[in-house]
């Protein structure tokens, strides 16, 4: 019983950040911009968020909850700003979108590592390659949390999980129920038609990539606040790529993608519980870590064939070819 609760609690706190990042990816890719940069975007977002939280904590003291929410906001801003590089490269400079994404990731890793060290040394006077955040506080909803199994979804919840759910609902509405969402989805399938309707394809794509930056940044700071309790190069362990796998698995649609994220999140937390239950040495948790990755590959084997990617995905839109 207790095990199932732990699996659910840990599973949810991994699933939701993954999901919100995947939504970012869906925005970008549905608008026609291939986005492998999610990994880098979440890292840079987490860096900005962690830095903001660290500075705010110095000012406001460790009791204040403001740094936590400031971190969320700055992570989104940071991710968004950094995503502009990807947008510029793909839309303005017509770089190969796959290569651009990978480049953005490599640069993100070295840039944040460098900045963390430099800022720690010059501003805070300490030689360190990380920014300590501590694990976020959690809350339990009284009453509902006593129901077996279902109650676990309301036990030890990170506040960011609520933020993510709210943001996810808003982004779902925006993508499927507004004219902006319609234009965005059309830009990825038939940009020429969007252009003919008098809508600026580039502008839509810029906005979509920025959206993916903001959402990835949010996801990044959530990982930093839950799994690693700090910002360091530990953040780059492939969360971004996992969410890309999730969105491919979900066929570039939000609800099926959620399902994929659930599978990854729960496979991971169940694996960890298994290692603990069997009282295996900690080295075995390394073996468990491969579960989401292997699962992704296996699932893709069955699903990739029938998957319909946005038709104009990965192509820079060239007006003159209309």
């Amino acid at each position: 019983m207790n095990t199932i609760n732990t699996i659910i609690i840990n599973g949810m706190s991994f699933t939701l950040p993954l999901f919100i990042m995947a939504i970012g990816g869906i925005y970008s890719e549905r608008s026609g911009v291939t986005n492998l940069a999610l990994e880098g975007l979440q890292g840079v977002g987490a860096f900005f968020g962690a830095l903001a939280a660290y500075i705010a904590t110095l000012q406001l003291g460790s009791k204040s909850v403001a740094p936590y929410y400031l971190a969320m906001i700055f992570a989104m801003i940071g991710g968004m700003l950094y995503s502009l590089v990807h947008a510029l490269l793909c839309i303005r400079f017509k770089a190969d979108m796959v290569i651009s994404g990978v480049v953005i990731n490599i640069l993100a890793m070295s840039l944040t590592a460098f900045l963390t060290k430099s800022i720690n040394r010059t501003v805070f006077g300490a030689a360190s390659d990380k920014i300590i955040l501590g694990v976020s506080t959690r809350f339990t909803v009284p009453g509902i949390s006593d129901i077996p199994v279902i109650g676990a979804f309301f036990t030890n919840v990170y506040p960011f999980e609520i933020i993510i759910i709210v943001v996810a609902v808003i982004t779902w509405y925006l993508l499927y129920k507004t004219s902006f969402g319609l234009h965005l989805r059309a830009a990825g399938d038939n940009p020429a038609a969007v252009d003919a309707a008098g809508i600026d394809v580039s502008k839509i794509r810029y906005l979509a990539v920025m959206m993916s930056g903001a959402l990835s940044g949010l996801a990044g700071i959530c990982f930093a606040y839950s799994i690693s309790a700090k910002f360091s190069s530990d953040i780059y362990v492939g969360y971004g790529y996992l969410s890309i796998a999730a969105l491919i698995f979900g066929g570039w649609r939000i609800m099926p993608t959620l399902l994929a994220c659930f599978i990854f999140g729960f496979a991971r937390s169940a694996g960890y519980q298994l290692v603990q239950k069997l009282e295996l040495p900690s080295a075995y948790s390394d073996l468990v870590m491969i579960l989401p990755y292997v699962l992704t590959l296996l699932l893709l084997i069955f699903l990739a064939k029938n998957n319909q990617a946005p038709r104009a995905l990965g192509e820079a839109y060239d007006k003159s070819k209309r």
Partner: protein
Amino acid sequence: MTKKENGGTEHFKVAVIAVLLGLLAGAVMMLILGKNPFMAYYNLLQGCGFMPKSKYAGGKSILTDLSSYIDFLTPMLFAALSVAVALKGGLFNIGISGQMLVGAFLATTIVGYSSLPAVLAKPLVIIIAALGGMLIGALIGFLKARFNINEVVSSIMLNYTAEYIITFFINTKYVDPISRQSKEISKASRLTLHQILIGGYRYDLAISFILAIAAIFIVRFILERTVLGYDIKAVGQNKEAARYAGIKVNRCITLSMAISGLLAGLAGASYYLGYFASMQPKTLPSTGFDAIAVCLVGGSSPIGIFFASLFLEIIAKGSTYMSSQAGLEAEIASVIMGLILLTSACSAFILEFLNKRKKIKSEKSQKSEERQGGGN
């Protein structure tokens, strides 16, 4: 032929511009931090044995640094060739790091910990590492050809899978309790003659460097002069057209990834059983990612790659010395590398920009000629 040569010089121009822009951006960053960029770049050269240092420890000389630099360069040559072969086939191999790990891990455990004599051990290391890398590469190619799985996604998944599995085995079976890395391999199986004494000075002689040079010409030969190379390039340029031309597209995809993986395996051997003699758990070698930069700057041609890695590896190798001399974080080297990557990803745009300028210039001169003609 002339057209191709033109493309070569044009690409060379673009690559130089991209690299200069990257270096410039790096210099600006250093200036912001209050450091002298010229001195820092000079330190990079000193660290690689291209420029003399002010003092050397006993038994070391400028040639020691140079030999160590060549030792460091060798894995990058293989890795960048690996990127190039896949790229020619229209595939993006970002799984080189994982393939390096797998090849090197198999070679380490099978040969590195055995007591085989050097004559047997060294060739075996090369063969096993190459096969290990090839297997993973072929798997990625097969998944792409058969199941339409994006090679970027599958190779990244395999990267992490390989990393964690190998970490598990190192930590449970082969760990050295002091260094927290895998136990050192036997001297006989190491591909680098480490710190050997010649004429009073010590050198790191990389045997695999000779193999890397050979690989450059072999890859060039395969791509330019064989049917297989032609097929791979045809598939890379237009899959559908290649299919109509009767080329077995799926076979080509698997094969080009297999060759790419083979080269990555060799990169792993020369890295973990050459430059190093042990493997670090929980780390993907950055060589696999930096190789993408090297390949892009080198225009994914084997010869271009040679010069690109010769140049770019100075930044990576010299960074340790630079950070000790200039008081800059060694990470700035990878930032500069990343910036160069960024600018070289825009090479298509730079090319377009150059062409546009050329056009404007020629139009201008035409106009002025016309005007002169009118005057007469």
